[in-house]
């Protein structure tokens, strides 16, 4: 009671947010987890029936592996390209400021808008097919959204366009925190550009790389708008699978099971992030 009295104002000001989070995040999540363990017909709890059902479904397996492939390829490319751009941006060159500003534009575009923009490129009558045709690389247009690896690569490309700037920013912050004197010491010690990168930059950037990887992995698992708009239900990922189960097939229980699996995957990475960020604090 004393606490209520001492912190009355703080409690009043926090209350709306707490209620919002409880009402719109905590309870729905708890309800979803509960439903995923509930028998859709009898309402019995707990049961693994929903999980057994979706594990047996081909589209769920596709969704799972598609998510993994998109995350794997996407992260590899984003990190590589992001690191190259970040390294470029640490150098002084004319127009660096302008380049940095341009680089940030994709971050400001809503994902849904970027997805629609990408359809201009990857549509069967889109710019990419036109370009390839004019270069005489194809005779008939490629159906990029038709499924298989090419569709996943299309989604990876669209995702990369959107999120590489964030990777660049995170890595750039890491690069700029490496003291210049260490590079000077390396140059006096006789390190070439490659050796400096290999033995100085990369190890010192490891904490930033790990953090960026985990943050991006959390995001990549949740990918929804891009596969939804670009590929539809032909190429499901975990989030679109859960959405389709609920929306198109009216299966809230299996949708809940799919969502819970996605939640667990994301939680693993969130705990990884917390662990790594705590460890980095100790290093510094």
């Amino acid at each position: 009671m004393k606490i209520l009295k001492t912190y009355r104002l703080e409690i009043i000001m926090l209350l709306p947010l707490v209620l919002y989070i409880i009402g719109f995040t905590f309870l729905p999540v708890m309800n979803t987890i509960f439903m995923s363990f509930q028998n859709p017909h009898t309402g019995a709890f707990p049961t693994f029936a929903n999980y057994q059902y979706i594990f047996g479904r081909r589209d769920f397996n596709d969704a799972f592996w598609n998510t993994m492939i998109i995350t794997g390829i996407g992260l590899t490319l984003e990190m590589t390209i992001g690191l190259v751009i970040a390294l470029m941006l640490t150098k002084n060159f004319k127009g660096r400021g302008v380049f940095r500003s341009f680089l940030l534009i994709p971050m400001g575009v809503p994902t849904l808008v970027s997805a629609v923009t990408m359809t201009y490129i990857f549509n069967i009558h889109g710019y990419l097919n036109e370009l390839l045709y004019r270069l005489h690389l194809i005779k008939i247009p490629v159906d990029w959204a038709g499924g298989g690896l090419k569709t996943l690569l299309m989604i990876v490309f669209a995702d990369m366009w959107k999120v590489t700037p964030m990777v660049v920013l995170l890595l750039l912050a890491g690069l700029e925190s490496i003291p210049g004197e260490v590079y000077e010491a390396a140059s006096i010690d006789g390190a070439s550009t490659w050796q400096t990168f290999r033995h100085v930059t990369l190890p010192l950037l490891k904490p930033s790389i790990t953090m960026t990887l985990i943050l991006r992995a959390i995001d990549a698992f949740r990918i929804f708008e891009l596969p939804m708009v670009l590929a539809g239900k032909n190429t499901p990922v975990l989030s679109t699978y859960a959405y389709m189960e609920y929306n198109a097939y009216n299966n809230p229980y299996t949708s809940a099971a799919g969502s819970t699996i996605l939640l667990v995957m994301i939680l693993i990475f969130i705990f990884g992030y917390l662990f790594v960020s705590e460890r980095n604090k100790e290093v510094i």
Partner: protein
Amino acid sequence: MSEVVFKNVCKNYGQVTVIHDLNLTIRDGEFLVLVGPSGCGKSTILRMIAGLEKITAGELYIGDRLVNDLPPKDRDIAMVFQNYALYPHMNVYENMAFGLKLRRFPGEEIDRRVKEAASILRIEHLLKRKPKELSGGQRQRVAIGRSIVRKPQVFLMDEPLSNLDAKLRVEMRAEISKLHNRLQTTVVYVTHDQTEAMTMGERIAVIKDGSIQQVDTPLNIYNHPANMFVAGFIGSPAMNFLPCRVERIDDEFYLDAQAFKIQVPKAKTEKLEAYTGREVVFGFRPEDIHSEPVLSETHANSSFTGVVDVVELLGAEMIVHLSTGTHSIIAKLDVRTRLKRGDKLQLTFDMNKIHLFDKENEVAIL
């Protein structure tokens, strides 16, 4: 031969010239200290030797090689940085071995050299530790170790002791001097601390605004400063400066500072002829004023009366701030003199140690 020679070296940053026409020879095996206030260009000179700064004009030789366009790794130099610049992800051993590994030294040779350097610097027990697990003094030893394992022609040290506490600084000062005696390698040492310069340097180069003011042994710089800047910069507390007029009465020269008038000894009057009747700057070090009453009685011509403003007791000696007329003077006196604020005190100059400077160009007259 590991001489370092600057011939008419200039350094510009855009329109700003930070080093003007530098001519300096650092002798083989010498411990030369570059000293000057912040921003005087001393670190730039060091970084030009290292190859971390490009030379705008002129020539720089290390040994007999022109090194203007040589990258740092080919100059056969090693540098100790102010903030140590150790590789944070490598342990002490790896930090020291890194340069040798890159130069493809055989493993046993690397091991031998690292252990030898570690034993000289007494850091053998730290070889497995990371830099973050070391104290400031230990890190500095590792940084020095990293530079000595390479056995370079020239050591460059950029304010290596400025991040250490006072006690450790005194210890490391002696250690670096000992190390130089042992290795007999050329050392160029940058500092803004005149005590470091005086105690460590075989020669000191005093720098101001990108120009060398004087290069000489510490004692010569202390006793015969070339100009007012050097006189004021070297020595603690700093030299006192008073404006005064040179007067000639018969064959004797006097300095008239309004509050007092003192006679210049015969041996020092040679160059004063030209300044007769002109304003000059009278300089004297705080320790060259004495308070013994017997002196003021026997040397009435070099005595004056001052009023005590502040007394700072340092134990073995005391620093006394005095005023005489409109001037303020700092004197270093024997602690046996009992003084308090407002006391009147008869003081005598040691006239053999006085300095006079031209008022216009601040160059030493005597």
